[in-house]
């Protein structure tokens, strides 16, 4: 008989949800986590700390706007980052307490250590004191997370040249920051530091940041970044990065351009820590990109071993990782998977934030040959004016003939919350007219759905009236 029904390796969003789901189904669950408490990089280095700092940065800027600069908040030129991060410690501690309580409430055993497979049915845990323990289980979920990728030509020293694990360890705000990469992590931190008064320069090989997002929305992010003194350098090839031994980091780009900054933040992707997991001993296959290979049910090449979260690759968002963890545990234990995972939204916490759910305009056009897009600028919404958040846009993507909502995409304040309304519409197969016929609270950002719906109505009527004329 196995020691456990389910052993989960890694206590981040995916692992935690897998463990909780398993325990709720009555399984004996062991959660193995390298750190003292569950949470993973999400709580320690990623989602929670960065969003907490973001709120602080946003509040400073917003206070000025909301008081019409009558009460100005002056940012000290050498503001210490650690003072801005004081709230982070409280938020992280509160989140850790919550997760610890959740694990205890569900009877999940938490063991601090580093796990590696010794066979397809057993793992060995290396403990902090150097001793080892071995356990067997009927099922496993690998949710070991990821760590920042460090290219050979970027000598990350966590002092002058930092990655996402060390960026928030800075105790003072640098005067300038070069950000390598233009993905989610790169753009989120670029936004935050720019809002705090740091001269930010994003450098990327791609022509545009956040290439997977609706570029009309991305323009809102770029506008805000430029407004804060930042810039985006696209189509650039990196040659080398080096600290000059004195006070600045030199970034050399192909073509001879040299950027100098007080600090550099390398955000060129993340890698899964597959090397230390003993996957060979378990027989688990790894992809050419170094990710754990899984099928649509999150099952690895070994039937009773599952994987979820960053370790299986994109989108590597906390929200999707949680769902993957839950689904992995459900499938392992023979539970109904439900429909939750079929339509996961994307939330990017840049300034302004970007939210997206469902199909994009090009995707709908490609599949159905035609598309209608209703737009609502936040400046047209009373709440946008009141909240000094006019820099925003909601796009409602619908089927051109039926008007069925297929996607919702937003940039601006509360965009990541706002798209949930669109998500419900997509899941329920609603048409955009629903938003015209429905009364919302006023003033709210949700009003943008009505504005976008009226825009769609206008477009459909224009098309309808244009058709007979064309026929003549």
């Amino acid at each position, binding site marked *: 008989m196995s020691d456990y029904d389910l052993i989960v390796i890694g206590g981040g969003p995916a692992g935690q949800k897998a463990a909780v789901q398993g325990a709720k189904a009555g399984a004996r669950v062991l959660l193995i986590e390298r750190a003292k408490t569950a949470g993973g990089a999400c709580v320690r280095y990623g989602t929670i700390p960065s969003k907490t700092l973001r709120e602080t940065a946003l509040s400073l800027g917003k206070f000025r706007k909301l008081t019409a600069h009558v009460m100005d908040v002056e940012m*000290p*030129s*050498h503001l210490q980052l650690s003072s801005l991060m004081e709230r982070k410690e409280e938020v992280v501690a509160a989140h850790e307490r919550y997760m610890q309580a959740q694990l205890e409430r569900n009877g999940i055993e938490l063991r601090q250590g580093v796990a590696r497979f010794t066979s397809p049915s057993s793992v060995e845990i290396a403990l*902090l004191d*150097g001793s080892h323990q071995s356990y067997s289980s009927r099922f496993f979920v690998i949710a070991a997370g990821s760590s920042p990728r460090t290219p050979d030509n970027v000598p990350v020293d966590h002092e002058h040249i930092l990655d996402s694990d*060390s960026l928030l360890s800075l*105790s003072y705000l640098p*005067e300038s920051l070069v950000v390598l990469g233009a993905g989610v992590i790169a753009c989120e931190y670029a936004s935050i530091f720019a809002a705090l008064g740091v001269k930010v320069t994003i450098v990327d090989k791609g022509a545009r940041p956040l290439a997977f997002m609706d570029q009309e929305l991305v323009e809102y992010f770029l506008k805000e970044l430029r407004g804060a003194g930042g810039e985006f350098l696209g189509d650039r090839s990196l040659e080398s990065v080096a600290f000059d031994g004195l006070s*600045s980091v030199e970034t050399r780009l192909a073509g001879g351009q040299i950027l100098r900054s007080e600090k550099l933040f390398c955000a060129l992707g993340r890698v899964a820590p597959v090397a230390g997991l003993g996957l060979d001993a378990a027989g688990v296959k790894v992809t050419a990109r170094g990710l754990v290979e899984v099928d649509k049910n999150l099952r690895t090449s070994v039937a009773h071993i599952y994987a979820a979260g960053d370790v299986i690759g994109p989108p590597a968002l906390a929200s999707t990782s949680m769902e993957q963890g839950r689904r992995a545990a459900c499938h392992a234990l023979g539970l109904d998977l439900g429909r939750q995972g079929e339509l996961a939204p994307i939330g990017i916490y840049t300034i302004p934030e970007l939210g997206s759910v469902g199909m994009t305009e090009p995707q709908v056009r490609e599949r159905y040959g035609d598309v209608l897009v209703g737009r609502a600028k936040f400046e047209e919404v009373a709440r946008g004016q009141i909240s000094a958040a006019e820099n925003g846009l909601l796009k409602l993507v619908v089927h051109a003939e039926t008007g069925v909502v297929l996607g919702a995409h937003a940039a601006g304040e509360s965009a990541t919350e706002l798209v949930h309304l669109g998500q419900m519409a997509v899941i329920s197969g609603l048409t955009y007219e629903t938003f015209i016929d429905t009364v919302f609270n006023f003033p709210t950002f949700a009003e943008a759905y009505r504005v976008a719906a009226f825009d769609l109505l206008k477009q459909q009527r224009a098309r309808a009236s244009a058709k007979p004329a064309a026929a003549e």
Partner: protein
Amino acid sequence: MAEAARVMETATVPKAILDELAWRVAQGKVDLPLLPGVAMEVTNVAAQESTDSRAIAELLRKDQAMAAHVLRVVSSPVYSGRTQIVSLQQAVARLGVQKIREISLAIAFRVGVFKLKGFEKEITALFQHSVGAAMFAQEIARSTRRNVEDAFMCGLLHDVGRPVILQALVQILAEQKLHVSPSAVIAATSELHADVGGTLAEAWGLPEAVEMSIRHHHSLTPPDAHVNSVRITALADAMAHFTFEPESTPEAELRKHPALAPLELYPEMLDKLLAKGESIRQAAGALS
């Protein structure tokens, strides 16, 4: 009675001498001189406009007395405005190397050099240890993704009370014509260095993390806000002792250090840190 006859010898530092030391510390009447070699090097390097700017920065990073003095000066409102400068790196970046050069030169001329006849070996070892602890501290910080600059400063200055006490005690004893055994002077220095160093750091306006690391690197009981700085400093202190004087800190003891578990330093991570010992020993040794 002849002058020499008034010299008394005691096996421990008399309470009156310790009281005098405490009074001088409280009054700010103690010095943190430079090593003679360092003072000369600073004078040479900083006085030459043609010197590579990096040489100045490197010099500051490798001497606890120079580092403390420079940090003290640049932390004053004259230089830092309303926000404290918390590291040498930040000071160089903010003020520019020319300003740091001028400050260093002024310090070298102003603060004087140690006059510690009979304690030359100890004072050299103290400075060597502080550099070793600083280098270990920054490596620990790198491994645990904590602030490397803060860790370096805390490591470099954690024992700053020792040379100050040593200098002051030798001076007071000479003034009062008392002779105390060197081992008693060293023991008193060890006993008092955390409190005295902390008091000085506070008076000098050094960053709070540095002050807490000085005060608590043996007791490991700091306020929450600086607990990890203190843990890193305490572990770096132990690793430097292990590296420079292995007999004082056996490896088995080091592997049970109370800061390891809270810092989540697993044995293989400690192995990697200890593997840097030889290069750190050589780098710190080159300074003496």
